């Protein structure tokens, strides 16, 4: 290799997406991790709120997850890339009511002791860096109880990471950026 091991490059800092993010980051089908009519499709919706409880109408929620079998189509997964073509990524802007909506499938367990989960990034004006969180599933009571992240949190804080079932194929997961019921955010 021609790259020198000691020449570590310094990182580019983060800056806010600002209020005009939709000019660059809008994808008409970004919220569709899978098509609406895909087998096993579920909808995850929620509202993003600020420190006063007011809705955040200019935010964006991104999701990243394993497929229904707990695999990633990604060569850096030491178990090997699944080859399934599942892209695992969702992106939804919040609307005037602060609401986002993602259509996806429930990820499978990864087999490493973690409960099924979706990694989330939230971006908005007023956030100088994304905030990162996770969505867990309400029907995984046993797995959630032993999940390394959830089990290390006080129960009322862990609860902010578990979605609520609101329909046969619909979950609700709200984001409180600050204040009462503040969502648990993660340093990754």
């Amino acid at each position, binding site marked *: 290799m021609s790259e020198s091991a000691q020449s570590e490059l310094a990182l580019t800092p983060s800056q806010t997406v600002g209020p005009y993010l939709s000019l660059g980051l809008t994808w008409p089908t970004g919220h569709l991790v899978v098509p609406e009519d895909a087998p096993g499709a579920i909808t995850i919706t929620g509202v993003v709120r600020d420190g006063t409880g007011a809705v955040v109408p200019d935010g964006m929620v991104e999701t990243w997850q394993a497929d229904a079998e707990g695999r990633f189509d990604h060569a850096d997964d030491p178990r090997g890339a699944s080859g399934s073509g599942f892209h695992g990524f969702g992106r939804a802007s919040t609307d005037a009511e602060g609401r986002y909506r993602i259509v996806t499938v429930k990820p499978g367990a990864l087999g*490493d002791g973690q409960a099924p989960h979706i990694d989330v990034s939230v971006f908005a004006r*007023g956030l100088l860096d994304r905030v990162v969180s996770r969505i867990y599933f309400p029907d995984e009571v046993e797995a959630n109880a032993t999940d390394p992240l959830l089990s290390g949190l006080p129960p009322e804080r862990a609860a902010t990471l578990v979605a609520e079932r609101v329909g046969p194929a619909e979950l609700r997961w709200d984001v409180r950026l600050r204040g009462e019921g503040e969502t648990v955010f993660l340093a990754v």
Partner: protein
Amino acid sequence: MTPSKPATIHQPSSAEIAGYLRPPPGTHPPLDSPPYKSTGLRAPSQAPVVLRHRLTEITGPLLTGEIGPNDHDLTRQHAAPPIGERIIVSGRVLDSDGRGIPDTLVEVWQANACGRYAHSVDTYDAPLDPNFSGGGRVVTDSAGNYSFTTIKPGPYPWGNHHNAWRPSHIHFSVFGRSFTQRLVTQMYFPGDPLFPYDPIFNSVPDEKARQRMISSFDMENSVSDWALAYRFDIVLRGREQTPFEEPHE
């Protein structure tokens, strides 16, 4: 990829997975940054919980997007060229080990030459340009290089404080190849007199880190009788070194 992987499906424990290096202090802005007023209601009040990097964090979306024919040239998205100083912006998306990140999506958005965004929320009393939308996207080549053509955005006022002006900037969004590498930033232009007054630029604590958000003038890539050029490299976090990564070295 390492050819020496075991043939059987291996269930890695977290200890075996090389994570990504944590950013040095001062690199990224603190979320709670009072001079930038909007942080007051939106920045979390509790410290984030440190998450060990496991499978979901060391993987990430590998997006090449749906790139339209003029997504790489913001001056050719309408019937006529936009008003403004035509520029070429190019650079490399790399990790901190100096490796280019190939085939990764770079999204950009910006104000027009007068500092006005083509967005319903922007009420700055400066002209909109019917020939400029201000959004673009490109995918890096096999060495991590990207390039796009646009016009130089103007500075614009904002409501943060009396006589607040943002230095000219282009917003950038990049993914890298893992969830941990996701980055949204802003590219600035060299020598901008507004730097000392901008709370967003100055939210980055480390002076050297701030300088890394400023593009450099790039005479070499300028095109005679056509456009000046600027260069902006984007460095994302590199991987931790572990025995698992180098099994037989």
